[in-house]
């Protein structure tokens, strides 16, 4: 997969930009705040319709502008596809795929896959379970396009159940709650099934990458722990998960009624990473954590490559400044043959050969 051209108007700090990248490696160099990350963010936005900076959509629109427009053409194994996204500061965005209104996020997710390496990727290992859930869900949504709709439906049902609990607390009508339990467990089972499938694909990659990235002979392992259910392993079918989820919800009902929120379900699950028997989150060195995070991103790339049949576009946002020379070299050694976009404040710290672009003052020019 490859981005052929990119146009942005009133996106972040850009007035207007038109950019024709190289099909191989593109290194974007410029001072801090010049807008390097915004270019990567725009590419990611076209592919996933969300910001990898976790920004609300309104924040993508240039101050005072009526709407932000990003469009780009991707060349995939199946031919070219033009994606256009128009985002107002408030309200609904408009998405066109080859000039036709896209019906859902899934339509766009089916076109192109991206994997982004971010400066704060260490969070994947160090911080709370939400980061690792999001990682699994992101990879799943790009591996199977229908997943983004399933995730949205689960979140919707969950929000509805929470709204019901918040309103009535202990006086919540149990029949209505039963009905929401049924919805949440059915939709939750799908989310869970996809997570476990993607986990199954990712795990061998991550463990072998951990060794390849040179962290020694210790074994890296993952364990998925489902709130209210217990440890689950890959390959568990969605149908087998509905009943356990329903039971977990019913076991937690008293607590849910007290706390006025849903305390079990895929939104509360944890993916625990350990090195031999040490918990990677609390008992691994910064360097080990860094290698795990890199491994998770490269593994995502490999899995998506395999599922989709062509290489995802790679976005490396200011990654090399965080890595020591040895890890930088190893990362480069593992970068696959793909279209790559790299940002950096210092050109010399990027050990990659490719097209160099100078980003300054809302302009991107060949350097």
């Amino acid at each position, binding site marked *: 997969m490859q981005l052929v051209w990119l146009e942005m108007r009133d996106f972040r700090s850009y007035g207007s930009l038109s950019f024709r990248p190289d099909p191989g490696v593109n290194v974007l160099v410029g001072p801090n705040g010049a807008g390097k990350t915004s270019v990567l963010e725009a590419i990611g936005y076209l592919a996933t319709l969300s910001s990898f900076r976790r920004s609300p959509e309104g924040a993508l629109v240039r101050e005072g502008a009526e709407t932000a427009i990003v469009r780009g053409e991707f060349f995939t194994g199946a031919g070219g596809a033009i994606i256009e996204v128009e985002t107002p500061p408030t309200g609904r965005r408009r998405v066109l795929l080859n000039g036709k209104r896209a*019906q*859902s996020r*899934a*339509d766009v997710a089916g076109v192109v896959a991206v994997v982004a390496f971010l400066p704060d990727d260490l969070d994947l290992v160090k911080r709370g379970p939400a980061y690792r859930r999001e990682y699994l869900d992101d990879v799943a949504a790009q591996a*199977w*396009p*229908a997943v983004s*709709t*399933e995730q949205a*439906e689960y979140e*919707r*049902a969950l*929000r*509805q*159940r929470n*709204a*019901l609990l918040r*309103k009535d607390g202990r006086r919540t*009508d149990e*029949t*209505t709650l*039963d*009905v*929401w339990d*049924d*919805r949440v467990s059915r*939709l939750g089972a799908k989310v869970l099934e996809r997570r476990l499938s993607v986990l199954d694909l990712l795990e061998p990659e991550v463990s072998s990458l951990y060794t390849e990235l040179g962290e020694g002979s210790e074994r890296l392992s993952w364990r998925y722990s489902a709130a209210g259910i217990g440890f689950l392993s890959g390959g568990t079918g969605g149908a087998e998960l509905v009943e356990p989820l329903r039971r977990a919800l019913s076991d937690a009902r008293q607590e849910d009624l007290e706390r006025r929120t849903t305390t079990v379900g895929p939104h509360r699950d944890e993916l625990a990473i350990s090195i031999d028997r040490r918990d990677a989150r609390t008992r691994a060195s910064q360097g080990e954590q860094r290698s795990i995070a890199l491994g998770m991103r490269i593994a995502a790339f490999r899995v998506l490559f395999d599922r989709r049949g062509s290489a995802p576009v790679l976005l490396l946002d200011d990654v090399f400044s965080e890595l020591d020379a040895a890890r930088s070299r190893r990362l480069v050694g593992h970068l696959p043959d793909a279209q790559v976009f790299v940002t950096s404040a210092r050109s010399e710290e990027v050990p990659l050969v490719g097209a160099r672009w100078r980003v300054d003052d809302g302009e991107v020019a060949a350097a």
Partner: protein
Amino acid sequence: MFEAPVQRLIDELSRLPGIGQKSAQRLAFHVLHIEEEDARRLADAITSMREQVRLCARCFNVTDTEQCSICRDLRRDPAEVCVVERAQDIVVIERTQEFRGRYHVLGGAISPIEGIGPEQLRIQELVARIDDEGIKEIIAATNPTVEGDTTALYLARLLKPLGVKVTRLASGLPVGGDLDYADEITLGRALAGRLEL
């Protein structure tokens, strides 16, 4: 921006669903240029619709009499009732010419986020109809959304113990379409609801 009477019409029009500022301006200027009599007819159509139209006492469809034309139709089978969220959904189902029973308009779907629980919908009224009319089957034709599906399930839980058969519209593939073009969610549902031949 415009002269006060023009602006007033633009403001009113732009409050309608699906009409933005630009469309409202275009409509307002269109009205400015038509015959005065045509303008009056339009205004009269709007106000008299509001005066004359009310909700059917039985099914809450839109009508201009005590009961709607479907409820008054003696050839309709009272044992089958199709439950919809909005009155306009009736028109869509009627167009198929496939359904010979009666309807019931709930007035929405269960959505705690918007403060809509079963009490806010016309569910008690539906329950009251079951014995009165000898209803045997309820067809839940609520929208295939999280809220619509939930409402259908709620009806099933509530009505099955009363001895009523509750069915749900199947969701599936568009007729005459190619399998390639179906999105995964629709195809997944079609697979789950497959029929034996």
